[in-house]
């Protein structure tokens, strides 16, 4: 028993943090929302080189082996820096393809996904696939029992999200039928679990970014002659946000260690709720300036709610926890 990151894991997190802090991810996210993917792809290349996308790919497919804990560290960093793109979905697609036990699609895609050379997306249970216009592989699991895996050729028109950086598509199951059979359903289940885990970690990062930016703001913003951050009403609200985030993180790490569906559901609920609580506090404590599109804060404010629901709504996760799903 040693529920602590080891030196290597802490170093990995620090490396990613430094890389992303230097990369102006917010500008890349703004461009991404406008349909200009170039800065986002450049950013993507950089953190792929740090090994992020190899973390969900087995050794034999040129990945780093399966390292879910490191993956949560990476996704917390991606969330903290508002990195655009189908990162969760690329991980999910990797897990799905690797889980097929069928060499051909895995060989065709996994090395490219692991290296960051290709982006993938996967249609979720809600029917939407993130960033299908820019993804090199758009995957859809379909059929009555979820036993068909399609490589979609035409994602269809974009559907607007509350977060303009998240570009939603609702692709139909058509194109190439990559695989069919119960192994597809099993691999898709595993892919959804990893997607939920990565989303939980990303939400944690989003919540932390909102908290950090709000703390910085209330230390600067003065009213009645003092920093508004000296008021207890402000301090206590932010203290509660920190409590929620700090108690969500160990759930995320434990879920990464076990990959147990109930553990993942707990992590997903706690981090999604904590991120949303952080967003509400951030909006309220920034006041009117926080309610603007132009403030950079909006990049995180608009992401908290979608991440809370993506890859496992709180209701579905709680149902799993009490054994009702």
């Amino acid at each position, binding site marked *: *028993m040693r529920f602590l990151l080891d030196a290597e894991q802490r170093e990995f997190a620090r490396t990613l943090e430094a890389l992303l802090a230097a990369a102006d991810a917010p500008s890349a996210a703004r461009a991404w929302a406008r349909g200009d993917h170039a800065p986002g792809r450049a950013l993507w290349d950089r953190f792929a080189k740090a090994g992020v996308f190899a973390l969900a790919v087995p050794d034999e497919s040129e990945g780093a082996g399966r390292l879910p804990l490191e993956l949560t560290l990476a996704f917390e960093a991606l969330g903290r820096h508002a990195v655009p793109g189908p990162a969760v979905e690329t991980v999910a697609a990797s897990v799905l393809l690797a889980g097929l036990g069928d060499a051909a699609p895995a060989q065709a895609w996994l090395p490219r996904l692991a290296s960051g050379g290709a982006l993938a997306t996967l249609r979720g249970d809600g029917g939407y696939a993130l960033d299908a216009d820019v993804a090199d592989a758009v995957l859809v699991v379909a059929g009555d029992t979820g036993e068909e895996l399609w490589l979609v050729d035409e994602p269809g028109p974009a559907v607007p999200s509350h977060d303009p950086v998240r570009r939603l598509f609702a692709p139909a199951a058509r194109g190439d039928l990559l695989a069919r059979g119960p192994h597809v359903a099993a691999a898709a289940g595993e892919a959804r679990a990893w997607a939920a885990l990565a989303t939980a970690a990303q939400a944690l990062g989003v919540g932390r970014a909102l908290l950090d930016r709000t703390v910085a703001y209330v230390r600067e913003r003065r009213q009645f002659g003092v920093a508004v951050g000296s008021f207890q009403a402000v301090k206590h609200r932010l203290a509660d946000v920190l409590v929620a985030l700090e108690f*969500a993180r160990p759930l995320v790490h*434990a879920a990464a260690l076990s990959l147990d569906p109930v553990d993942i559901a707990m992590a997903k609920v706690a981090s999604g709720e904590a991120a949303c609580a952080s967003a509400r506090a951030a909006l309220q404590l920034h006041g009117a300036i926080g309610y603007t599109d132009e403030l950079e804060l909006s990049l995180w404010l608009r992401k908290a709610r979608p991440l809370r629901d993506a890859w496992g709504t709180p209701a579905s996760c709680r149902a799993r926890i009490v054994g009702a799903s």
Partner: protein
Amino acid sequence: MDLTHDAETEAFRDEARAWLAAHVPPTPPPSLETREGFAAHRAWEAELAADRWSVVSWPEPYGGRGVDILRWLVFEEEYYAAGAPGRVSQNGISLLAPTLFDHGTEEQRARVLPPMARGEVIWAQAWSEPASGSDLASLRSRAVRTDGGWLLSGQKTWSSRAAFADRAFGLFRSEPGLDRPHLGLTYLMFDLRAPGVTVRPIGRLDGKPAFAELFLDEVFVPDEDVVGAPGEGWRVAMSTAGNERGLTLRSPGRFLASACRLAALWDSAGRDRALADRVADALIGARAYQLFTYAGASRFAAGGVIGAESSLNKVFWSEYDIALHETALDLLGPDAERADGPWAEGWVFSLAGPIYAGTNEIQRDIIAERLLGLPKGRR
């Protein structure tokens, strides 16, 4: 990162579980906040101590087993999973003992700890005063130097367990008039039956005398019952507050057991969909608290210190405990009103959680100022 216990720890768990299975009374004793219940819980402490289960984390010479904090957590998980009685010695074990380990003399440890471990001497805390609650450092009860010791005078209040306890520990002003209020305080232990002590039990919200007022009129305390140096009381009392105590004030095992009981109640009450989410949240919270504590214990075992994070702990468990009990009452429906129900006393007790051991408002100030770096001020 690893959440599995080693074989030795699992063997320790098995040993604890087996002992508890053989010894935990099949029906719980009366409330420890009643005279007969207090006596029953005292007897239970003796039974625990007879087989060295009352203070497993203490060194062996004082009645413990010298186990590390991770095994203490494992013991607590088994203890509450077995439905064992509440700990009437809690205040002594979790507040006074760590202070004696850090600041006491060997003579004090040898004299005070073994009877505490056996439940022969039950300790009450004597921190608050009528005019000094959250602002504890403003306290006015005095310790005046006399031959061979000190004379204590003043009034303490909200003294948990004092209605039936034997001795108490607290802070007293020994050097009045210094620049800052937390200077000139002395940490003392005293006998609740000494001449000059009047104990007036106070009924808690449910009427049970869970705490008391203490009136002290020139109560003699020998020098040997000063903990740490005279005048250093504030530092002595606070130094362990953020250390192990922050981790061990409320064990995760207790909430894991409560959450399991809650889920079982929900099951037996027909799995009401309307309450399913709150039952799920109780399970999530218990697990989160366990994991947060394991993380803190791992940091502690690796040589780290637990500082202001213990305030995160306090806010979390105290709010969590109320939410859990409110859900239980909602599941009970009309029977929730019954004061003799299985969740009744736990609910009443949970309501005090955000108030004692440093109100949650004080904890949130600490979180905001020390962990988030927000400016001081209480406007």
